[in-house]
Structures are given as C-alpha cells and as structure tokens.
C-alpha cells in the first residue's frame, strides 16, 4: 500500500470544465435544430463545422503554437464555434465563417492567455470582426421556412424585424412568430422558445449565472416600455425582448462565465448595463441591433464591476 499525501479537501465534486462545456453544447441543441428546420441544412452544417473546427483550432494553438504538450481538449472551443454559427446568417460562406472563427479563438481568446483569461466573449469578438469586415454577408438574412433540403442561396432574402423598425417600415410579424422563430435573422436569434428550452436545461443543471439574463432582459423591457409610452414608433417592450439577438445574447453570451462578474450584485449591474446599452443602440444608434456591442462593452467593465462589488467578509465590521 502506497500512500499519497494530497492536500485537503480529499474529495472533489464530479464537475469539471469539460462537463460544463458539454452541458452548454447540449443546451444549444434545440436552437441548432430549430435553425436547421427554419433555414435548411446549411445551418446545421455551419453549427457542426463550428463545433469541430473550434475545438481543432484550440488544440492546434495550445499544442503547437503555445507548446502546452499536456493540453486536453475541454470543449470551450466547440462552444465558441457553435455560438459564432448561431450569430451569423444562414447563407454566410464557409470561408468567411472560418476566418471569423479563427479570429474569435485566436484574437478573442488565446492572445489574452487562453481559457479563463480572455476579457471579451470570443464568439462576439468573431461576430463583430465579421460585421466590420464583411458587412454585406453579415446582414443578408433569408426568410425562414424554406425547408431543410433547400440551399440557402435559392431562398429569398428578408429583413429582420429590428431593421424594419429602424427604417420605420410596416411590421407584419406577430409575437407568436417572434416567439417560435418564424422571422429573418441569424441562426440563433430567431426562436425564443428553443433558446429558453436550452436555458432551462442549464438552469436545472445549475450551470449559469442566472442573475444576468434576469437583469438584462428586465432592463430592456422596462426601458423600452418607457420609450414606447413616450412614442410608439420605438416599438413596444414585448416586441423588443422577443426580437433580435436579445435572448441569444442574454441567455448564452452575456452569461459566459469567463467574461462576466463574480458576484450576484456584479451580475445585476452587468445585466443592467447590457440592457441600457442595447436599448440605446437599438433606438438611437446607427445599427438596428446592439446586443453584441453592448455585451462586449460591458465585458470590458467586468474588472471594475468585480472591484466595486466585493462581498463583505463574514463578520467584517461596516466601515
């Protein structure tokens, strides 16, 4: 019998980074399936490609470029890949998507030191990079419902509800359309229902900082309600929380563990900031949608939020 003198605690929870990432991937399955039903097989292809290539890029960078010979894949690259796929149009060419993914992981994550060190959500870094570099490809949306087998390049293009709102056009979508996802948009920003199913899964598995989506969506609802009361042209609050990338952003991007605050109070402030910025960009900015930019901006404030929302140590006297 050979004894080892490990440090206390001698028992550990079964959770590990990989199981968390796998749970996030599972939570995104409904949205991916939904996207492939609405937009066709190419959506499914992009998601799976993103997953595989994301993990591969992580592996290559860690093993060969950064020389970490003991690196074991942890699934975080796959999560970034799927999230980026959910953030792009269903007819984005593969080449452009891969450029975005390489940028997302390379510059968004590994430049900062890899997993856990990055300041910005890598998938959003990739999305914004593509938006700036390939604006036409990134803003050409197709109408949903053409069928799984249809090639996306044969499908009619469509504007997103938020674009219509920005241009002051006539809206012909119902809340139900928005909720189940029968609208134009990126892969993952269409169906609120499917995103919520995934979110509930993460909630049950206790894998999510739940304060962020509550305060984010709550803030957007309250603010747009105020503006709607002032002038109905801004769009009503239910429309705002159901449309665009808000659900995807609030449920899966803003809640990224690495790039969000550590305390409940900090998470509340983070969600609040994201909400205010999203509404300001949507209603007064040049872009029709502001979820990704809002989250990235708030990501940069996380160290400050963490510093001001330190919990008071048990038994510490109020100063």
């Amino acid at each position, binding site marked *: 019998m050979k*004894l080892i003198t490990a440090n206390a*605690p001698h028992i550990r*929870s079964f959770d590990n980074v990989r199981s968390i990432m796998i749970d996030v991937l599972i939570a995104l399955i409904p949205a991916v399936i939904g996207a492939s039903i609405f937009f066709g097989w190419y959506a499914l292809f992009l998601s799976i490609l993103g997953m595989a290539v994301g993990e591969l890029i992580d592996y290559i960078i860690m093993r060969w470029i950064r020389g970490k010979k003991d690196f074991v894949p942890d699934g975080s690259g796959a999560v970034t890949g799927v999230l980026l796929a959910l953030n792009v149009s269903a007819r984005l060419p593969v080449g452009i998507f891969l450029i975005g993914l390489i940028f997302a992981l390379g510059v968004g994550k590994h430049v900062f030191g890899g997993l*856990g060190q990055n300041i910005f959500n890598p998938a959003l870094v990739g999305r914004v990079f593509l938006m700036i570099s390939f604006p036409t490809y990134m803003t050409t949306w197709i109408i949903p419902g053409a069928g799984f087998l249809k090639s996306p390049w044969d499908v009619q293009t469509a504007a997103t509800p938020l674009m219509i709102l920005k241009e002051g056009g006539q809206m012909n979508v119902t809340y139900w359309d928005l909720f189940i996802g029968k609208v134009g948009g990126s892969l993952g920003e269409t169906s609120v229902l499917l995103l919520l199913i995934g979110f509930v899964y993460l909630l049950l598995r206790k894998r999510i900082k739940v304060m962020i989506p509550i305060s984010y969506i709550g803030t957007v609802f309250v603010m747009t309600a105020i503006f709607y009361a002032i002038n109905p042209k801004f769009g009503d609050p239910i429309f705002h929380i159901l449309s665009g990338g808000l659900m995807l952003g609030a449920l899966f991007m803003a809640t990224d563990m*690495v790039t969000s605050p550590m305390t409940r109070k900090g998470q509340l402030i983070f969600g609040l900031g994201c909400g205010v910025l999203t509404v300001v960009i949507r209603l007064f900015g040049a872009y029709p949608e502001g979820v990704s930019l809002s989250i990235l901006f708030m990501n940069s404030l996380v160290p400050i939020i963490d510093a001001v929302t330190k919990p*008071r140590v048990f038994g510490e006297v109020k100063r």
Partner: protein
Amino acid sequence: MKLFTFRGGVHPPERKELSRDREIVRAPLPSRVFVSMSNHAGAPAKPVVETGQEVKTGQVIGEPTAFISAYVHSPVTGKVVEIKKMLHPVIGKPIDTVVIERTGDDDWELLPHGDFERFSKEELVDIVKKAGIVGLGGAMFPTHVKLSPPPEKKIDTLIINGAECEPYLTIDHRLMLERAEDIAHGISIMKKILDVEEVIVGIENNKIDAVENMKKVLRGIAKVYTLKTKYPQGSEKQLIYAVTGRKVPSGGLPMDVGVVVQNVGTAVAVKEAVADGKPLVERGLTVAGEGVNEPKNLIVRIGSPVSWILELCGGVKEETNRIILGGPMMGIAIRDVNTPIFKGTSGIVALLPEKPLVPKPCIRCSRCVEACPMNLQPYLLYLLALKKRYDDAVKEGLMDCIECGSCAFICPSKIEHVRYIKLAKNVYRALRGGKK
C-alpha cells in the same frame, strides 16, 4: 420544522451510511502508544517523565508550557521506552513524543472527582485543565481556556456542536445516541462553570434520531436545534450564526459575541474528568471510508498507531492510497501508517484511488464565491497567492479563511484554493515577523 443554517456551503456526498449504524465499541488496549507532546493547539507540552520510568494510566507525562497549552497523560499503564522527535502530521514538524510500552492492565491515577455540585467553578476549571481536555471536534483548542473567558467578556450562551458536517464521520452521531446522558452531565458541568442559562445543541437534520434522543434526554437542560445538512455547518462561526444570528467579528473569537462552543465529544470528556476522575486518555473516533473493510465507531487510547486501529477494523483494501486523520474535507493525509492518533482525531478515513484531477485555469464560474461560508472570493485569494501578492491577499480577507475546503471541493477547474491559501497565510505570518 425550522432549519437553522448559514449562507454558502456545499453538499459533499455524506457517505455516513458506512458506519452510522455501528455501535461504539471499546478497542482493546494497545501494546505500544506514541503520545505527542503536541496533542493540543498552542505551545507543545514539556515531557516530565524519563526513559525507563514506570507510568500509570492517567499519570501526567507532559506539562503545559504556556497559557494556551495543555497537560498530556499516559494512556496506558506501562514503561516509557523512548522519548523521541516524531513528525507531527498536523504541524508538519518533528515534535517530542513519549513512547510507552504497556506492561499490564489499567492502573488508574485519578483526578479528584465526584458530584460536580460539590466543586466551585474554579475547582471545576482546574479539573478540566488537569485532565488535559481539548476540543475533540478537531481543532484541539484547550477547553479550560475556552471555559475561563476574561471577566470583561460576558458569556450568555453555550453552544454544543453536534453538527458533524464532515462526510464519513459518525462518532458524534453515535455519542448522541448512546451517551446522551453523559453529554447532558457534561453540559450541566459547563453550565455551572460558565454560569449560563442558555444552552443550544445544534444537530444536522441527517441525524434525526440523534435530535429526538437528545431532545428527550436534555429536556430542561438545553435546547436542541435542527440544522440544515450542509457543509461546513459544524464550523464554529457558521454554527454560532445559524443558531443565534450573531456574527463573530473578523479576527475575533466566539466569546466576543458572548458564546462558547464545545463539541459533544468534549462534553463527554468533561463528564468523565469531573465525575469519574479520568483524564483525557481516550476518545471516540470513526474508522470508515471505501478502503476500510469493516467500518467502525471505536473508543481508542490516544497515541494508538493508525495501522493498529485499522487492523482492528479488518485492515484496509490493497488499493487504498490515502489515509486521512479527520474527515475528508479538512483532514490531514498521512504518509506513515504508523502515525499515532491525537486528541483531535475524530476519524480515520481510508480512501481508494480516484481519477487523477486535470487542473484547468479558472473559468470564473463564481461557484467558489457562492460556496464560501465566510463571504470571501477564493478565486481571487488563489490568484493573489499565486502571484505572491500576500499583502493584497490579506486585504481581501485571507486571514478570515477558515480553510473549510468548500471552494476547492466545488471548483470545476480543480484548483487547490486551500493549499495556496494556507501557504499564503504561512508566508504572511512569517514575513510579518510576529507583528500585528
């Protein structure tokens, strides 16, 4: 039913079913004991016996050297064969250890004893001190020090800790079932010493039978509160907060909020010292863990070698790779299976190999922050310790850490927060050079 608890904490697998239903049995007398002069928190005792000297059971073999120190007694009747330095697993340094070879059955040297009502408070504290009683929950803080708070600290509540939140350990549970009368007797003695009316016994709700039994036996002596089963419910500060709502100030002691906390095992030891005149030479402990063939709750003499105790429990499985003194959350893994047990050893847990941990960088999941019962940010303390920024770590509450291990238990990245925090504390204390 109202459950008392605190904020934070974790739920490790309890694994108490291994030994929960085993009645306490008295182990035979060991043939050889190794009694450390550091069987308590504080300064090690000074050996007062010589090699070759005959000693009786209960005879003083070590005397306290400071205010926070304690008497050490011979656990057997026999002959001192050697006084040598032995590695102390908790302190991590060699400490004087008296090796005694047993020559016969117990020939007791007893303390003055009898009905506690006959003694004055001072006499009772003196008996507790002379009996070498220390906190049997694991911290081994000398009990007579706790029972004689300075006069400016008014104590109004005595809390008896029956939480037993460490996985695997069941000895306190068994004591509350089998020795409730002795616990009640010990409580009455401590009530008289501290001159308090309010006594609260806290027991986790995974021991409902103990709660019922203690309620029955302690009627009119103490209140029994049911605590939520959560680790570290038995931690002193968390227990005080759970049952009284008082928060021990940072850097302070329970007496600062008018509370003294004693373990149920300590209550039994106090009873045995005062009523039976027996110094603390034996204690109850749980031998459990997947590596033990026959888990048991035993009463064994202090200084018995772990290997000998494990033999009494049918030995350990061949694959066993960790033997822990105490529970698996805060206990110390020993390298040498011949290490003796101490007054604070509440259990011996033998664990089988597990999948090697793959450490990953912190992914800021914030679970350690949610789990920390002291409201600290363990991820931050870990990072600061790693970067050797000890002063900053102290500003973030490093010294408030109770080292319960909740953060390291819950961490998905398998970071060893407690190891780095302990290291940082030691370095900080050394650098500070004793200054406050």
